[in-house]
């Protein structure tokens, strides 16, 4: 007899998604990771729009990854028009994307995932017994947001980062203030690692994972031009189509990505796994101490990796600000460049993993064709693989199975509003 088990609506995730598992006894017949956020057609909407306002539109693909989208978008445009940026711009962008990571991870690790581990429906309920954790989360999140507002001028969907630089450079006072906040936030970040290292990782979803992450260059980070794949491959971002191989699946309505015909994973776990040697001081130490918590065969390690990244982000943020302050800040205005018929591709690491923007322009700088591939779309196939594994290994109550699946999915920190290509099947 077959049973259909479902989670109608995943909670504590960005956007709308659900799960369906069809079992025959203990045999897994079918699994679906359904995404039913409404269609937003960004790639078709932005056609004919002048490049100048493209980042303003595409950053609205997702609220929590807004800076990643805008930087991916700006980068693609700059690659198309060969824009040269100043070192100050590069540093500010680096700071910005670390800020986003802090904000996003603080929200996810502390407020969305931690309640799972401690057994609460949400952070508000959790605050009754763990006020400190919630206050830490809010303080960290606020710090991330502060970086965002200082550089981008709003918590969500800022506007100050632009093609060719920043419209207005932050003042030294503002950056110094951010630095003070970051210093104060350090213990809260480290506490996240302390908290998660104490949780025993369930093993029900252990299986092989192909991991993919950006090559951050010298230091651990979220910007770069190449992509690393577990096993040692390194590809230029321009090869992204080969890496992601998107397809529309009849059931789930983000397009699914596959690599070499198999699922792969992007996100904190791949990043830490592939570039942990480039982490900052404390984060590196903490990684070494608890490297057993970073298990490439267990996607639940993702939360711990996010906690590690929090430590890194805070430290790295301070470092970047120090460099900026010692160089002195200048209102440089935006870089000059010429618009021509062209195509540009760019990759960044959003908090949830690799994000690609690819645009083609006509000679006046208006978009003729666009393609955007988000981390959650890339992870979808891997999520389904994990569901199969969990369902296959499961013995016991169905309710527990579905709960395990939900916890696992949440560990990916899926950002469904972000998945761009999403529609629900009629």
């Amino acid at each position, binding site marked *: 007899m077959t049973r259909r088990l479902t989670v109608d*609506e995943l*909670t*504590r*995730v*960005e*956007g*709308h998604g659900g799960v369906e598992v069809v079992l025959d006894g203990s045999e897994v017949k079918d699994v679906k990771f359904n995404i*039913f*956020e*409404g*269609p*937003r*057609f*960004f*790639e*078709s*909407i932005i056609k*004919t*729009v*002048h490049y100048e*306002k493209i980042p*303003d*539109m595409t950053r*609205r*693909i*997702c*609220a929590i990854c*807004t800076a990643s989208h805008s930087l991916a978008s700006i980068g693609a445009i700059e690659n198309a028009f060969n824009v040269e940026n100043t070192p100050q711009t590069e540093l500010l962008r680096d700071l910005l994307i670390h800020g986003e990571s802090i904000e996003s991870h603080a*929200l996810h690790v502390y*407020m*969305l995932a931690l*309640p799972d581990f401690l057994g609460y*429906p*949400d952070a*508000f*309920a959790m*605050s009754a017994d763990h006020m400190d954790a*919630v206050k830490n989360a*809010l*303080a960290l*999140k*606020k710090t991330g*947001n502060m970086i965002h507002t200082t550089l981008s*001028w709003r*918590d*969500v*969907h800022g*506007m*100050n980062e632009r093609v060719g630089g920043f*419209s*207005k450079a932050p003042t030294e006072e503002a950056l110094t203030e951010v630095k003070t906040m970051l210093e104060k936030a350090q213990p809260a970040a480290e506490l996240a690692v302390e908290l998660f290292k104490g949780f025993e990782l369930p093993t029900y979803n252990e299986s092989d994972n192909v991991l993919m992450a950006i090559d951050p260059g010298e230091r651990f980070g979220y910007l770069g031009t190449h992509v690393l794949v577990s096993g040692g491959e390194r590809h230029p971002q321009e090869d992204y189509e080969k890496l992601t191989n998107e397809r*529309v699946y009849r059931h789930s*309505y983000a397009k699914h990505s596959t690599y070499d015909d198999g699922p792969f994973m992007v996100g904190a776990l791949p990043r830490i796994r592939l570039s942990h040697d480039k982490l900052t001081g404390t984060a590196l130490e903490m990684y070494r101490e608890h490297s057993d918590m970073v298990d490439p065969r267990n996607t639940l390690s993702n939360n711990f990796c996010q906690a590690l990244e929090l430590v890194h982000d805070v430290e790295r943020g301070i470092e970047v600000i120090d460099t900026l302050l010692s160089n002195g800040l200048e209102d440089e205005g935006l870089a000059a460049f010429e618009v021509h018929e062209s195509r540009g591709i760019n990759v960044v690491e959003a908090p949830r993993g690799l994000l690609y923007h690819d645009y083609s322009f006509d000679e006046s700088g208006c978009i003729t064709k666009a393609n955007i591939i988000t981390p959650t779309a890339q992870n979808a196939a891997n999520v389904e693989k994990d569901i199969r594994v969990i369902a296959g290994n499961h013995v016991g109550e169905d309710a527990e199975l579905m709960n395990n699946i939900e916890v696992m999915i949440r560990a990916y920190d899926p950002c469904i*509003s*972000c998945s761009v*290509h999403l*529609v*629900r*099947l*009629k």
Partner: protein
Amino acid sequence: MKPRVGIFSLTGCAGDQLQILNMEDELLDLVSHIHIVDFQEGSSYKEEGPVDIAFVEGSVSTETDLKHLKEIRERSKVLIAFGNCAVEGGIQAMRNDEGSIDERLKEVYGVEPGFFDARLSKPLSEYVDVDLDIPGCPVEKEETLRAITSLLHGDTPLRFTYPVCVECKLNEYPCVIIESGKPCLGPVIRAGCDARCPGLGLDCIGCRGPVDSASGFAAEYSMLLEKGYSKEFILNRLRVFSGEVKEDFLGGDQ
């Protein structure tokens, strides 16, 4: 008894809910004044039954959204369209009058009509009575908080009924239209953001949607035409956050 508050979301980027979570300094105080019965992004806890204040973000873009919205309306005393998607239909409504949804599905997904549960993105008011709108992409934290306190106080929240230019002037920001001919939408967009973009030397792209009196649209349109912007450029600009800019907004000569 604490008012029962629901924070619901339809199609959008979830940024307006996030703005509630972003009220780091006030969040705990706020939740102590209200009883949250639904908050998809923030909590697994859900409760059936009536809702005193429903915040609904996102636009209606699927049959499921529509069903959900009608259910929310049914159980809610005050329904608030929360954010630009809910108030105007959002960025995803920008091309509503250009080509059908089927063509877009074909283009983005390469699938045949009828494959997906999708409809043209529309604001909530297209389908249900909306008691209050809080505009913005995303909503402003302060405005949201003010609306909540005002509702808790038993009052109707104040709305911004004047354009961004007012705040631009009060801040003494140089006008980007006058200084450099940029296509600023400030004159026709609802204030409340403290003229953030002009403050950075950027032209307002209208993320708070049109100010109540749409009479300025025609004047804005002809002003930008006069400055040499093409019709397509202006429409691409006006439509991003204004839903379908009605033809009659733009006067006869377009």
